[in-house]
């Protein structure tokens, strides 16, 4: 029996007067790879910001491993690993310094050897002592993923994390995440436009439109569409969006 890692309960969120999320409800269990889909500007990143306690919801609540991000923020943050946007990385620190600061901020006693191994697999170690502002988008993206994986988080939150990654590196990251999921060590919440990831890796997917979840696909539905052909999911998504 897997436990619920993320429980989003009727969450509303706004930027100023503009309401971006209008009652989002979803659950993610341990071992699940949950993909959040939707056109640009529908609130995917806003929802991830709320889950990562970067933005306080105007209504509703979010529980990360039973800790509310509103009332037990620090406990909730201890359970999650958030892959920030590449442009948020500090340009005047090196990759190694970023890992060290992030590990310290996450109250870790050491940087996980597993993350260092992943850095080697991603051919990132040669960039560790270079400044982040000299990195390409793909290299920054690798660092964002590594930071998100520090400290054995039970919920990994990634926002378009495969954008800019070369196919080989993307495959390394996907396999690494799959290993963690297979061992029931975590759950993954990924906002993406890549239907390939949904078809081949996701256990569950949801379509967000106008700040609401309008459709969810279960593991079996995704598997069925995978068997029906490559474009089946694309057609289904287009149908829902229109």
């Amino acid at each position: 029996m897997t436990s619920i890692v993320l429980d989003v309960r009727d969450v509303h969120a706004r930027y100023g007067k503009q309401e971006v999320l209008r009652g989002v409800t979803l659950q993610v269990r341990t071992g699940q790879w949950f993909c959040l889909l939707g056109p640009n500007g529908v609130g995917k990143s806003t929802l991830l910001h709320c889950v990562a306690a970067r933005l306080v919801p105007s209504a509703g609540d979010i529980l990360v491993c039973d800790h509310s991000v509103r009332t037990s923020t620090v406990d909730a943050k201890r359970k999650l690993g958030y892959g920030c946007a590449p442009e948020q990385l500090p340009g005047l620190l090196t990759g190694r310094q970023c890992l060290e600061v992030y590990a310290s901020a996450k109250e870790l006693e050491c940087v996980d050897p597993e993350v260092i191994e992943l850095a080697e697999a991603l051919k990132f170690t040669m960039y560790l002592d270079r400044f982040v502002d000299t990195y390409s988008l793909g290299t920054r993206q690798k660092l964002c993923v590594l930071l998100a994986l520090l400290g054995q988080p039970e919920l990994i939150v990634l926002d378009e994390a495969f954008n800019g990654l070369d196919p080989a590196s993307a495959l390394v990251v996907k396999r690494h995440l799959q290993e963690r999921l297979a061992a029931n060590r975590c759950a993954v919440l990924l906002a993406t436009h890549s239907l390939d990831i949904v078809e081949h890796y996701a256990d569950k997917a949801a379509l967000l439109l106008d700040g609401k979840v309008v459709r969810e696909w279960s593991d079996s539905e995704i598997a069925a569409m995978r068997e029906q052909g490559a474009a089946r999911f694309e057609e289904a998504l287009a149908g829902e969006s229109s």
Partner: protein
Amino acid sequence: MLAALGVAGEVHATVVGKVMLWIALATAIGSIVGWWSARRSRADALEGSRYVGAIKPRNETLPSAAALSGWPVAQVRAWGRPENLRILVLIPALFAVQAGSSAVHGLSVLAIWVLGGYLGGLLRAVWHTARSASAWLRSTPIPFAQFAWAMTRKALLHQLVGTAVAAAVLISLGAPLANALYLGALWLAIVLLSYSIFVVDAYRARPPLIRLVLSFATLAIVEARQHGWSIPLAALLAAWHLRAGAKT
């Protein structure tokens, strides 16, 4: 002014004409060089880290927030690229040295300008970097005390040493000891108060303007009534801001 003096007959017309000609020529050459260099290189397109200095490669990666404390200093260096420095510091510095001054006097004035620019830049850099660091680390459980200490530790040390050097230079330029010490202490009080507001507001992701205005208005009023009292008051206000930040 030269033209007016020439018209008034106080300076010979040919001297005025020559000076005006040289000014016009220098302006024309400067304009061409400026236009050409602006086209040739886009300074802002270069990475800021080019001006920070090399980092020694290491083999170990250990959890530590120490790198955060070096970030404001690195930011000042990145801002202090030659293109910015020559405009913001060197030109006013050169104009501040009076004709007929000794070389030591000129260099001391130049040192005060450069040091002042650095310390002023460092004051601003802490807000700039603390805000970025806070946004970057917001999804981590970093405690306020760790964040505040890491962001300000090195900058405070640089401010302390820089202010001491500036006070020494002022004394060497002939400023009375009491005045130099008072200016130094006042600057450090301003730094302490500003940094406390910056780290609290960066951590809380809110703008610091209102707290800065209110705090410094209070200091100004107290200083106007009782000379020197603003310094302990600034320390008290800084402690009060930090205590409020630690509660969140």
